[in-house]
């Protein structure tokens, strides 16, 4: 009886406090939160790939919902990031919603660089994740581990709502991006909380 209570209690704690297992905690000190900086973009903060992209905001939460309910159109939306120069972009995490019958979503983190002496940019795929099936309210992480170089490079995420040969969803809200969050370490500070470093982002 007591063994069962212990097991149930531990399961309840794990289910309600899912900090354990979050890959973004790796390498951070203490509780893993104070030495990291987070920047977030709402779903509607993205740029549709073209005027052929059909979208509606979902639920009033500034989520971006793909509403190409027929074949054709544009399924891409881009989120352009402004990140602190010289810091390591460690992770990007994406929150969204995907129900059964919707197209699979491909998340691609890209970097494009071109110095003052170059005329053609070099674009690199830094990380990619595929969200498949009936994911429900999902959250996916993309490992990046790239040192930000704002002098020459630009960073963004491509969200691709599947091929144009099928409808991405049947109704608004079935396939949506809620938010995207980047994570980078903070420079060493004397005080972690509420101490603003001169010139920091």
């Amino acid at each position, binding site marked *: 009886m007591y063994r069962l209570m212990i097991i149930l*209690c531990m399961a309840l704690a794990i289910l309600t*406090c899912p900090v354990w297992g979050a890959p973004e905690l790796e390498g951070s000190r203490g509780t893993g939160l104070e030495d990291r900086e987070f920047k977030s973009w709402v779903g509607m*903060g993205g740029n549709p790939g073209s005027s052929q992209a059909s979208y509606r905001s979902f639920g009033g939460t500034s989520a971006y919902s793909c509403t190409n309910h027929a074949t054709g159109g544009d399924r891409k939306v881009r989120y352009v990031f402004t990140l602190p120069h010289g810091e390591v972009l460690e992770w990007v995490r994406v929150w969204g919603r995907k129900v059964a019958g919707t197209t699979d979503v491909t998340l691609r983190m890209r970097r494009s660089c071109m110095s003052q002496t170059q005329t053609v940019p070099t674009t690199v795929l830094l990380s990619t994740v595929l969200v498949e099936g009936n994911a429900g309210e999902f959250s996916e992480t993309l490992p990046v581990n790239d040192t930000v170089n704002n002098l020459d490079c630009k960073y963004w995420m491509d969200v691709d709502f599947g091929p144009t040969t099928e409808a991405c969803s049947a109704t608004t809200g079935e396939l949506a991006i809620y938010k995207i969050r980047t994570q980078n370490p903070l420079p060493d500070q004397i005080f972690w909380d509420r101490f603003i470093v001169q010139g920091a982002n």
Partner: protein
Amino acid sequence: MTSMSYIPMTKALLAATLLSFGVCMAAETLEAEPITDPKALQARGFDPDGPPIYRFNREPDERALDVRIEEREQAELQSALAGSQSQDVNWVSVQGTDFQFLADQNAYTTLGNHTLSCATGGTNRFADAPVRFARGARLRFLDVWTLDDSVDHNVDVGLYQACQPMWSGGAPVVTELGLIQGSGNPGVRFQFISLGEVLAQNRTCTYWVRAMFSSCAADTSVAVQKVRVIWD
């Protein structure tokens, strides 16, 4: 170990587990009142049949605008004289095409000067512009510049926060941090409200400004010129 020795161990584990559960749940507790009226939700661009959003229950400041502006200016002057003003950027502004209407191909115009109007024939009255705050920012003021030459139509501007679990999926929980409502036809106008020193929670939340036009029929007679959030 006898069965009796399990009791203190179990109590300790149970207490630790409940504490962990409570800490996790407390981290997501909102100290705000829910907006459940479908009309109020719809007026703000939310699903009238959807979950409630929240807002902080603050007493409105009924003092004249020039009195409140004077108070802010004096506070900034005192802060500058005391040398306590940070040299870092402590504001964010959005205008024009920073906003995106909540439906594709909605008719709008920025009039070439980076303002925002819902154009005649537009079917969606709401436009969002994401905003980001410095780490640890204590939000102080929502400042709004508008043009309103329409007797019948206005534009409201609100600042919103949507929070989700730190490490897993989940539907967003939305809080209205501040709302400035337009009225009459005052022409060009500046308005602001105090945000009550809400702390930005960049780890779990995102933020955006929403322009809410009462009608697209107003066209360019109603425009959002600029929205700014100030923190310290």
